[in-house]
């Protein structure tokens, strides 16, 4: 399998006044296509910085970042916006759905910025909503949906753009355990269909649903190991999918 994500000596330095903070100190890892990975670490470990870099929301201070074989670490703002639009599907802890739009319209949003026509957007968004089992809620607004449903809409939005990788930031952090499990089950299913998924979390239970855990501490990788089968959590089929 080719690598979807590859970072070489990835560094990120912030300047706070006269002090330089080394948030990331030379990371090296690669994520092959179809893998489901968890990135773990305590707060201050550089987790969020890494997420921002992997998500092309930020540029590395040094080192290289290849996404889908293309180096993206030196691109302009607008070029990075296009990379985010086409190659990355974000799933946020607090869903970040727009309250004035229906579920379907929220899912369509990335496709609007890709310049798709209305019919094409509808088709893709309908398919994505079907994949998360929310076809019957497509005309509901976010506030009319439960937290778990909102997060599934969020996942559908990430899927709609057919990205190279899905980047999830504490996707179950705001959910009760049942809804959280539903979302993890959804990820497992997407993984099963060949999607590359990166979950950033501090929750080991969540991380144990993946096949590989990268631990960060003080801006460095402290361990990068596959999750042994014996410890792997697996969930049954999602109800009603």
């Amino acid at each position: 399998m080719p690598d979807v994500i590859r970072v070489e000596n990835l560094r990120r330095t912030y300047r706070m006044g006269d002090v330089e903070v080394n948030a990331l100190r030379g990371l090296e890892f690669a994520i092959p296509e179809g893998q489901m990975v968890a990135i773990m670490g305590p707060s201050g470990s550089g987790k969020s910085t890494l997420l921002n870099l992997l998500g092309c929301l930020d540029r590395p201070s040094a080192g290289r970042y290849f996404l889908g074989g293309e180096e993206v670490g030196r691109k302009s703002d607008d070029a990075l916006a296009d990379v985010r639009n086409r190659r990355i599907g974000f799933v946020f802890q607090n869903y970040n759905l727009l309250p004035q739009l229906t579920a379907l319209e929220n899912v369509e949003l990335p496709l609007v910025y890709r310049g798709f026509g209305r019919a094409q957007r509808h088709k893709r968004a309908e398919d994505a909503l079907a994949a998360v089992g929310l076809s019957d809620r497509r005309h509901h607004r976010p506030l009319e949906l439960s937290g778990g449903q909102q997060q599934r809409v969020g996942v559908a939005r990430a899927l709609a753009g057919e990205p190279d990788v899905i980047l999830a930031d504490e996707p179950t952090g705001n959910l009760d355990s049942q809804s959280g499990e539903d979302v993890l089950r959804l990820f497992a299913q997407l993984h099963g269909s060949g999607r590359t998924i990166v979950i950033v979390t501090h929750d080991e239970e969540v991380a144990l649903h993946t096949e590989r855990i990268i631990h960060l501490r003080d801006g460095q990788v402290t361990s990068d190991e596959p999750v042994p089968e014996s410890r792997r959590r697996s969930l049954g089929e999602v109800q009603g999918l």
Partner: protein
Amino acid sequence: MIGESVRMAWRSLMLGKLRAFLTMLGIIIGVGAVIALISIGQAATGSVTSQIQALGSNLITVTPLRGAGAVLYYPQDVTWLKQVVPQISADAPLMTGSVVSVYGSQNYSTTLMGTTPASLKIQGRSLAAGRYLIASDITYRRAVAVLGQTVVEQLFGVRSPIGQTITVNGTPLTVIGTLKSAGGGFGANQDDVILTPITTAEEILGTNQISSMIAGARSGAVAPLAVAQIEAVMTARFQNQNAAMVVSQDQILSTLSTITSTLTMMLGGIAGISLLVGGIGIMNIMLVTVAERTREIGLRKAIGARRGAILTQFLVESGILSLFGGAIGALLGSLGASIMATALGWSGGVDSSSIVLALAFSLVVGIVFGMWPAMRASRLDPIEALRQG
């Protein structure tokens, strides 16, 4: 993409209808005021113009310039003027003086104007009743008078004055006719006058000087030529540069039009300031909106909106606000202007060009004042923006 922006902007505005309306209110009032004031100004200009035109468009007035060494005119100058200036078809003397007129127990201070039969047509007046002065009235110094409507009202009220005798500075005069009202004019009230034969006025006022001469140009086209000609011959006759101030009706008209259109523009400009204030209101609200929707902006950027897309989105929002406000304002302004025009009896509706101008201006206001907030939105760092809220 722009259609999509309009749709999105509309959805966002519909989230806060009251706020959107209040924001538009500034533009509504601004555009409404501009349109109403400009329309009313134009209607007033039209009204003044038509009143002056009614006075006879070929009227030329010849007055000696006041001051030291001022020349004096006598009735024979009138006869002479018509002979030497071929561009005028008729002329008449005006001998004016303040008098007290008495009828029964009523008395009223007014202006006596001694003149000749030609003056009626030159001034574009017409009779309400009776007859005007005729040549023999002049020749025989008849004690007769033609009254303007103001004098009729003051001395006679609703009674008919024809055939009655009034006393003017002690001289009894028989009323032979009344003039139709010239309408509310500018400057002197054209209806507050008693006309008598020039010869009779000489006796009452005890002088044989005349105050001014009026002449009718043969046509509007030759009026400027007649003015120049009169100036030349008067200067030559009196050997004095200040012998005559010669003014044609056209000149008065264009002077007045200049004044009224300047006033109209000034009113429009003052109203335009309120449009500016409305624009600042839009900027204010858009800044608040951008601050409130920081997360939304962050999300849109995260899922791939370029700077330009965010800029467009917020510009379209402020553009919609101002354009809608402008449209409502134009509607209300036109309505106000036509109600006003109807109430004052002026003709003329709202100029479509001023509506187009006001709409275009309000759109420009929206985009100009929306630019800064939109730039702020487009420059937000998505990481910072997503962290908020």
